[in-house]
């Protein structure tokens, strides 16, 4: 495997702290709305679908498929930016790792992986082929 790029630390705020605290325990949380029943991404206190405040954190197995991707060639370490559609419904921007960049494809099944971030930040959710 080629050397991976260093990932900058995500800056948590009070609204998102539970996500990053769970990430430190290796758990992947997403938000779901108890009013309309729909999951969303990125996590918010107010549901982006119905504006209800009745949202809850739920643990996700972190399985999905690649919706689109772009392999960044013009960088010291090649990396892949992608949108992954989770089995729960929402599509999230992320990276694909532990893969052959030239054979990555839309529709490919992926599962969550975690990567450390700079300056002791919380782990960041990325995906790898499954």
């Amino acid at each position, binding site marked *: 495997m080629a050397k991976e790029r260093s990932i900058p630390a*995500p800056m948590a705020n009070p609204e998102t702290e539970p996500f990053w605290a769970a990430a430190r325990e290796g758990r992947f949380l997403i938000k779901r709305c108890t009013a309309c029943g729909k999951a969303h991404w990125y996590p918010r206190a107010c549901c982006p679908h119905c504006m209800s405040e009745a949202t809850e954190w739920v643990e996700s197995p972190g399985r999905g498929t690649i919706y689109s991707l*772009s392999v960044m060639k013009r960088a010291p370490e090649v990396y892949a930016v992608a949108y992954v559609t989770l089995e729960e419904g929402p599509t999230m921007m992320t990276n694909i790792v532990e893969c052959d960049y030239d054979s990555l494809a839309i529709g490919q099944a992926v599962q969550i992986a975690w990567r450390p971030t700079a300056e002791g930040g919380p782990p960041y959710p990325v995906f790898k082929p499954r």
Partner: protein
Amino acid sequence: MTIKGKAYIAGAYEHPTRLAKDKSVAQLHAESALGALRDAGLTKADVDGYFCAGDAPGLGPLAMADYMNLTLRHLDSTDLGGCSYIAHVAHAAEAIAAGRCSVALITLAGRPRSEGHSGATPRIRGADAPDTQWEFPTGVATVNAYAMVAARHMYQFGTTPEQLAWVKVAASHHAQHNPHAMLRDVVTVEQVVGSPLIATPLHRLDCCVVSDGGGALVVVAPEIARSLKRPLVKVLGAGESMKGQMGGDVDLTYSAGVRSGPAAFAEAGVKPADIQYASVYDSFTITVVVQLEDLGFCEKGQGGRFVADGNLISGVGKLPWNTDGGGLCNNHPANRGGITKVIEAVRQLRGEAHPAVQVKDCRLALAHGTGGLLGSRHGAATLIMERE
């Protein structure tokens, strides 16, 4: 209320510089403003409305308005990214129609080339933006956010790299006639797809230039327009919108142009087939393909076929487009291509485009753009203008 016929674009000026190592951003704004006022036959004292966006240094419009020492009764610093200035023309027309001002000045300027910016370098767009902690760690650069749109378009509609390349080919055919254009060499489809991949599936020649520069527009009330010596370019209709990730219901196949375009056409009372010249923001080749579909110049998914075989080349194809060479070849000042889109449309409507690319008897033109990142969250603005 409608803005149809309520305002005219009397002044338009594109700063000739493409590398401004020895100028400040404020200076470029002011030089552009002066150029547009001279073009209109007006002076600073006539200006009573001022419009700018995030490229203007300082807080909103305040620092630039003070730098130019304007006396104003209307200010607007709406920022929709690179298409802001297209929206500003509409906002100026609204303000004029409401009696809030009668001579509106719009400026843009920046020096990303001198400052070493690149669309291939990830940058934070607001540390406190709610999306930053989720997306900035991915290393998503501007080019990736457009490349993912291209990848999905190819997957879903069978669009090819060669079809995207035709957009750049058309821009280069036009740029060869523009002495100010950064890239004046005509290129072929083979050269575009043979240029290095920057971010799959986009090649170097699918990407716009990075240039210093600026531009300005002067929008005026009808009675003022008629008192000036310039051809009458009337605002017919406009629309604006935005599109994001829709809470995770991401759909990269269309842009906010699906809302701004139809709104503009409805207000103007015309349809895409009536448009004789179109300026459509070309940050990347894929940007043009998606927007042409969303504006209704072709069916969704057919944009690749529509742009192929020189269909955007003036005098060759059905839709003369970006006849200044666009952002792909001419100029992309401040990394924001909206104002140059309006400026070239005004040149076309006045009959002042380069003779090699001038559309014969051009009476109806469109300027459209997106701003921000097409693949995550972007603004869109559409403007339809008529030569009276």
